[in-house]
């Protein structure tokens, strides 16, 4: 009898059930999408923040002082110590290697450019552009195109569109960018203007004829410099395998009380927790571990500020998610209350025929449960789709929904539907059947 009552109720009141169901579905969809976006926003914004460039720099432990004014290095070229290029792929072997978006080695070399009489000193930087490397069984590419996304190259074909951090495929092919194994170079835009060079021209450096594949524009010191593949710079300097410093771009967690502590003074448990959190400090510590004789430090301009920006945006999304959850809960309750309020005559009839308060309540709760489950499942799928669309259109990447969210969302849907129905059911049950049947509701 009971299942039949529920079944008939759904069959005869399709319109009302549909309205309540739609309200639940939409409410759950909004809640799901907002929770998914809010949980993922930290990671997404973190990746966007990588467009500010590297947040860590690795230098030799016994590094000498940089003497550099306006992008021109005044230090004798062979001075100081170097890192070994062969150690670099080990960066992928650190504990937080999944958080390391990319790294670029730098080797500045002072070279003479121009004819003998008008020769002038120019800094040539050797680096990776988009170098294919291998660590263990893993192949990956890294270089300035990932870590320095604001570098624009004007070459023979490209429009120099800005690539998203970590997504080299975005920028049109290799327009203007030299190959890492070639002897092609990039010339900074101000230097190119001074030398009256354009892409395709050749430039004589250290008795080599180098082809300019593109003109580099960065808005920084590189505009007065030459950028070349690392191997070429090493040959010019005469130090194979040498690297002056490495810029590392990593996804990090905003700093808190734990992050600032000195690992030497920690207890083993605290140390483990610190080591296993992607703080910029712990990643720097791990980089020092894998690269011998190195000193890794955060670039405070980038590293310190991104924490603030990240926590602000995350906090904001969290609060908005609460607002969304509140609004959806209210919408579901309102729809349920309305649906039940309309059925007082039915309740009156049932009670007149001898149904107890409990039976009536159970019937209505069973209907609400059914609605909540159906609406919850439909809403979850719709919300997942919505989150996916938001991820695609805003961040150009997936917003993944954790499967563990599904039971939670369903439970919330059932709870909110029950809560929304409870007051209305109680009032409906208490209502005198005589009034209800007389139609004086």
């Amino acid at each position: 009898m009971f299942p039949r009552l529920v079944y008939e109720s759904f069959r005869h009141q399709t319109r009302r059930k549909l309205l309540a169901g739609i309200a639940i579905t939409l409410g759950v969809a909004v809640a799901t999408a907002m929770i998914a976006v809010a949980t993922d926003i930290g990671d997404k914004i973190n990746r966007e923040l990588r467009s500010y460039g590297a947040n860590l720099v690795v230098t030799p432990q016994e590094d000498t002082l940089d003497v550099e004014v306006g992008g021109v290095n005044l230090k004798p070229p062979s001075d100081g110590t170097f890192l070994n290029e062969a150690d670099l792929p080990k960066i992928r072997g650190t504990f937080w290697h999944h958080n390391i978006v990319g790294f670029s080695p730098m080797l500045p070399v002072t070279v003479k450019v121009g004819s003998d009489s008008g020769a002038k000193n120019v800094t040539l930087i050797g680096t990776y552009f988009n170098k294919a490397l291998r660590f263990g069984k893993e192949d990956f590419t890294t270089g300035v195109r990932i870590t320095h996304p604001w570098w624009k190259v004007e070459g023979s074909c490209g429009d120099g569109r800005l690539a998203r951090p970590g997504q080299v495929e975005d920028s049109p092919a290799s327009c203007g960018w030299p190959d890492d194994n070639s002897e092609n170079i990039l010339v900074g835009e101000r230097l190119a203007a001074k030398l009256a060079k354009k892409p395709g021209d050749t430039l004589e450096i250290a008795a080599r004829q180098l082809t300019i594949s593109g003109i580099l524009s960065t808005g920084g010191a590189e505009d007065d410099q030459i950028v070349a593949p690392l191997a070429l710079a090493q040959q010019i300097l005469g130090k194979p395998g040498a690297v002056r410093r490495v810029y590392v771009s990593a996804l990090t967690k905003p700093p808190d009380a734990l992050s600032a502590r000195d690992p030497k003074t920690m207890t083993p448990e605290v140390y483990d927790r610190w080591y296993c959190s992607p703080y910029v400090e712990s990643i720097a510590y791990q980089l020092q571990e894998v690269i011998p004789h190195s000193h890794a430090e955060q670039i405070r301009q980038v590293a310190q500020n991104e924490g603030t920006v990240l926590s602000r945006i995350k906090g904001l999304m969290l609060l908005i998610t609460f607002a969304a959850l509140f609004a959806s809960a209210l919408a579901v309750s309102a729809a349920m209350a309305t649906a039940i309020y309309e059925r007082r005559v039915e309740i009156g009839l049932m009670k007149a025929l001898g149904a107890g308060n409990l039976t009536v309540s159970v019937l209505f709760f069973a209907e609400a449960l059914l609605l909540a489950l159906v609406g919850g499942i439909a809403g979850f799928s719709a919300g997942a789709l919505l989150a996916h669309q938001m991820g695609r259109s805003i961040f150009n990447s997936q917003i993944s929904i954790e499967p563990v969210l599904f039971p939670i969302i369903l439970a919330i849907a059932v709870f909110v539907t029950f809560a929304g129905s409870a007051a209305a059911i109680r009032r409906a049950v208490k209502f005198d059947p005589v009034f209800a049947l007389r139609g004086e509701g």
Partner: protein
Amino acid sequence: MTTIITPGTLLTPKQVADRRALASHTSPSVSMFARMLLRAAVLRRRRAASALLAMIVAAAVATAMMNLYVDVQAKLRSEFRNYGANVVVVAKDGQSLPANALTRIESVLGAKTLAVPFSYAVARIKGGQSDGQSVVVVGTDFARSRQLNHWWKVSHWPDAPNEALIGMRAAAVVIPKASSNRQPFELTFQGKPIQLAPAGLLQTGAGEDSRIYIDQSEFQSWTGVAPSTIEVAANGTAADVDASIRQLAQLLPTAEVRPVRQIMEGEANVLNKTRATLYASATLVVLTSALCVLATLIGWVFDRRRDFAIMKALGASERLVNGFFAAEAAALGVVGAILGFFIGIGVAALIGRVNFHAPVVPRFSVFPYVLAGSVAVALISAILPIVLLRRVQPAIILRGE
């Protein structure tokens, strides 16, 4: 326990008195209409209250979202200014900037813009174990520099004459390890010596770590070199910054004015994504609350089909009945919007306080939109059931079917 009074029930003397009081002083036709509106609200106050509550919540949420959407962008922009200068003014080819460049930049861009001068020289260390080694010395304005470069980790800012701020790596060379940190050291520039006392250490993880910073006027009297670079933190949107760059280029034709692309593009990137997310979320939240209003109000109006039938049975014209329900809905929308607006401003202020540690300025320009939206949603929710009811004969409704 029931408080619902139907047309058939007797009124208590107090209620009768209330009715009289209400009817006493207004012109007949207007007063009738007003009375119907008011009594509809008073008699079914429970349902009316829940409809009004839904309206208020929706208006409050919409207000808070719109306020935040506008304000958060400004808040985030000011957070992004912590990244430092976004415009650099550099003298062309090793010259110096005009002496009054700084004051001119400030007068053009307004007091809120921060401009910090920098001048560079390569000096030699005199005495100690690193005698004769080159080091870059920078002259700057410490007070301004401190405001511009929030990320500088400084143990102590110089506050006395001839005190210097020393980069971490420069300190390893300049300050002998054995001696106390405050021991003075000597530098020479083209033969001219200067005695400096270390005030504090500077740590940035970038080029600043290898430099020594001293006060601009001391730097200039020592080396005779005037500032060659001015770093500017220009406020506002990307268009504002572009305009500032053009203004500066016009003002200082001998200098090169260029944006710091790393900062500008990073900011644009993050801000655009955040704005889009915020927009999408705000739209979703506002739509959900509109849905909530719709669900409540449709129920409320549908529920009153008996009033509708009685009015028609008593000979009210279609227009009057529709007008009555529409006026009722509009009144609900207006009251809900006004109350909701103030609550929403409170919520936005709270979110601003919690998240940004700064109050969100209430934007009254949002109010017309909230008002129009509330009334529109209320009217739609009233019209839908009326259209459905219009097809039904009053007699059928009154018979309770």
